[in-house]
């Protein structure tokens, strides 16, 4: 994961003045969002991919209940439609398909939880820093910087070496608490620009507490932005997880796409011609994360009429 598509630290959600539709605008606006969503190619396609993968992740393990880590056939079996091993088997004869669907499930989980946690922390820090400003801002910035520069790997190493076993849950939480800095910065910038708007001033004048203002005035006004941020953290978390798994810091036991990749490499799947062990995890991650990124942009265009192509 590199530059995060469409995250700007200084673009404020565009306000669309010209051609405002009068009358029951609110309802119509909602209707319009839905309408646009269905009309946005980016959104529809990415949504389709995500739903498909989610479907696999949820029902796959139910349908094919073979233990991903148990011999389920001859070793290094080619993909065949008969006799279960649709995606073939690994070096040890474990069923690749069940590894894939279980791994997919784990990846979704990591993204969902890790991304969510990251978003929460990022929002908290971002809001407080951006709204309060002053020394609070300074300190929070410092903390953010520390988190930005510390090789999180180091911290992970220390923690993992204490845990006799670590699960996907642990990985997700860890990623959550280390992946928020950029989000915090972006949200801080947004909050900053919103802080000076009239309606915020009004809210302040009406004597609402800082929290109330943040929760009821600021957050709703950048809800779309926050959602996009979450999507990006979601995708990012999945990629980070893959990297951790790859250097052997992933979950011990259990399955994940990254772990699949890691195993297929330690057992030299490619050199031994077991490509069907190596390819699915990669393609799975690309499809999942790619779809998320595309959706991010699609939604951006939906939320923000100016960006729509007409």
């Amino acid at each position, binding site marked *: 994961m590199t530059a*995060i598509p469409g995250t700007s630290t*200084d*673009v404020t959600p565009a306000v669309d003045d010209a051609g405002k539709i009068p009358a029951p605008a609110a309802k119509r606006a909602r209707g319009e969002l839905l309408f646009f969503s269905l009309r946005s190619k980016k959104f529809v396609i990415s949504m389709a991919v995500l739903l498909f993968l989610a479907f696999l992740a949820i029902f796959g393990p139910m349908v094919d209940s073979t233990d991903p880590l148990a011999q389920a056939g001859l070793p290094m079996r080619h993909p065949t439609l008969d006799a279960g091993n649709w995606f073939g088997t690994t070096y040890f004869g474990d069923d690749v398909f069940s590894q894939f669907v279980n791994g997919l499930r784990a990846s979704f989980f990591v993204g969902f939880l890790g991304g969510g946690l990251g978003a929460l922390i990022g929002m908290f820090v971002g809001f407080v820093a951006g709204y309060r400003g002053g020394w609070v801002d300074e300190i929070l910035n410092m903390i953010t*910087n520390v988190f930005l520069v510390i090789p999180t790997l*180091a911290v992970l190493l220390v923690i993992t*070496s204490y845990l006799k076993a670590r699960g996907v849950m642990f990985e997700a939480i860890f990623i959550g608490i280390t992946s928020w800095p950029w989000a915090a910065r972006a949200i801080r910038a947004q909050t900053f620009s919103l802080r000076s708007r009239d309606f915020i001033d009004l809210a302040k004048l009406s004597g609402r507490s800082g929290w109330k203002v943040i929760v009821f005035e600021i957050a709703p006004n950048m809800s779309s932005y926050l959602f996009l941020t979450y999507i990006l953290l979601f995708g990012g978390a999945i990629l980070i997880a*893959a990297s951790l798994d790859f250097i052997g810091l992933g979950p011990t036991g259990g399955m994940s796409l990254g772990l699949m*990749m890691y195993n297929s*490499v330690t057992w030299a799947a490619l050199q031994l011609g077991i490509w069907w062990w190596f390819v699915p995890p990669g393609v799975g991650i690309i499809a999942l994360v790619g779809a998320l990124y595309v959706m991010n942009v699609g939604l951006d265009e939906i939320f923000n009429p100016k960006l729509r192509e007409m």
Partner: protein
Amino acid sequence: MRRYFGRKLFTYLLTFFVAATIDWLIPRFMPGDPVAVLVTKTGVFSPTQAAEMVKYYTNLFGLNQPLPVQYLNFWTSLLHGNLGLSVYGNGTPVFDMIMAAAPYTLALLVPAILLSWWAGNSFGALAARRKWLDNTVLPMGYILTATPYMWLALVLSFTLSFSLRIFPLSGGYGFNLEPTFTWLFFTDLVAHWILPFLSLFLVMFGGWAIGMRNMIIYELESDYSRYLASLGAPQGLIRKYAFRNAMLPQITGLALQLGVIVAGALVTEIVFSYPGLGHLVFAAINNEDYFLLQGIFLFIIIGVLLANFIVDIVYVLVDPRTRVAMRGGTA
């Protein structure tokens, strides 16, 4: 101006201090006695010999002093560029090991980051609002950013190196060569460099391209663009402005992404067993060499901090608003 950088510098130093301290804690916090690991690794001695080796290594690594002392030693020796001794390199100064590896990593990272940033941004700007590019090439960008570094790296090495034999499989330079200032050696070096570089470049390129594409669309819709348009200014000028302004968040983005990019370089090196820091980190992890890890991470911390600082300066140079703000203009 000076006040601004003064404050930045201060926060950076503070950040460094905190980060370094956390970093120092690594080996001390680790369960497991590194010496025991080393002795066990050394193979079967006679019992008496094992006892000797334990003594030998324990004071070699200075682990026999109380923690506060060790902490002070850490800083003092740090100032002398001494990062302690490596368990994995049984007793080789960590500093030397890092210095041997760092150039490879830098040679991967610096060009990969700068080139991908430049190419990605230019391309993204080009694609924005140009339907055919937007619909043909940009999707590639999404696929690329969504690709795990090591996966792309593995695909490249398997196809181009293992199957087609176009590029060497692994290593920093041919195992049949000794480093010399010769054309032969130089080309060999590049041949080994190209694939790791490519796998980093491609993934990042996609990211920047998409980032820029989305940024610039915001800019093209902004008020100043509209104003120029209504005064009949040609697209060229409008795009020029938009590009320049869309660049700014991308610069920030670069700073924010550095950590992740470094991580990417690490796994890529592992795939090509490219003798850079990533390879070293991997070895250090597998050998529980926390002194080495500590050193490498410290190196990375410093690198990232420096890069951030540079980005800050660049940002000030390209974004007049910050300059004005510093001059205390109305803002």
